[in-house]
């Protein structure tokens, strides 16, 4: 593949899930801050309004998470392949990707070590962080949220887990983790070959091949071939006359 070419990387259900999730999590963070610190944060008017919107956004995020899970697990059947890092990713890929994000991106002397394909969409660091987010944090925040929304009917379960205080603390800590992830996610999304190179494909589905990704490889092949032919030519010229005769020249 050549630079400038486009590949279809993000299918429609995943894009719908992503943007519903984005709107939902931003709403949850703001309304959550209003519920936690009502005397300092007053964005949506009353406390009751913040609670109602928080509950609605929570349900939307939970339903979109269900859609994401059903799509990857049963339709695309690529949940593990897409989100779980391989041994190669853990051993060297993560360090290489971290070095790129911390140094090479700014120095501009090396290309992104990860090549995006529909089968291998995420780099090793993305895989690791998304795996924790999607398989641990999101289910936990949904479960604690459902329990907090229905404290009276689900009182027995709340007590078994450790009571209301523990539940609120866990929900709050998970929310802090989501909030931190949100800032890092948006920042890293701007680290393409242009600031919107990774953001636009999340809306359209089509990702443009980065200029320094495949060109080097494509250009390297003829160079190698040229060098090989030059060496053969030199060998021919330097070879003694009896060998040339034997070769039928």
């Amino acid at each position, binding site marked *: 593949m050549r630079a400038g070419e486009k590949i279809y990387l993000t299918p429609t259900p995943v894009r719908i899930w992503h943007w*519903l999730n984005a709107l939902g999590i931003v709403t949850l963070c703001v309304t959550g801050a209003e519920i936690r610190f009502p005397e300092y944060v007053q964005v949506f008017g009353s406390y*009751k*309004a913040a609670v109602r919107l928080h509950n609605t956004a929570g349900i939307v995020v939970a339903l979109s998470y269900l859609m994401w899970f059903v799509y990857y697990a049963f339709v695309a059947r690529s949940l593990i392949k897409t989100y779980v890092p391989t041994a190669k990713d853990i051993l060297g890929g993560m360090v290489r990707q971290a070095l790129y994000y911390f140094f090479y991106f700014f120095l501009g002397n090396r290309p992104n070590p990860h090549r995006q394909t529909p089968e291998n969409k995420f780099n090793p660091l993305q895989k690791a962080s998304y795996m924790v987010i999607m398989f641990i944090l999101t289910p936990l925040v949904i479960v604690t949220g459902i329990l907090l929304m229905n404290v009276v009917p689900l009182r027995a379960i709340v007590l078994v887990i450790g009571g209301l205080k523990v539940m609120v603390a866990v929900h709050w800590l998970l929310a802090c983790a989501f909030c931190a992830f949100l800032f890092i996610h948006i920042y890293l999304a701007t680290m393409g070959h242009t600031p919107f190179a990774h953001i636009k494909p999340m809306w359209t589905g089509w990702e443009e091949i980065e200029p320094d990704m495949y060109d080097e490889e494509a250009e390297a092949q003829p160079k190698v071939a040229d060098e090989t032919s030059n060496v053969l030519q030199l060998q021919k010229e330097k070879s003694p006359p009896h060998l040339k005769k034997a070769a039928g020249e």
Partner: protein
Amino acid sequence: MKQVKRGTMVLGMLLAGTGNVWAAQGARHDNSGIIVWAFLGLCALIVVAQLVPALMMLFGFVKALVSKREKEVQVAESTANEG
């Protein structure tokens, strides 16, 4: 006059007891419903904005398929007429 006084007193006593009702109604007016519907509207907008291009592409595929079949039928008919 006495009757008017008594009537006003009774009315006052009756209205004094309805304070809780007014308070409850005031608490309900927090515009939370509008905010929730606005949020759900944005969600619907995302879904529609993502589905419309996909549906248009699907429509394009169907249109291209139908026109191709029509052309094939026309070519077959003209060949049969020539023969």
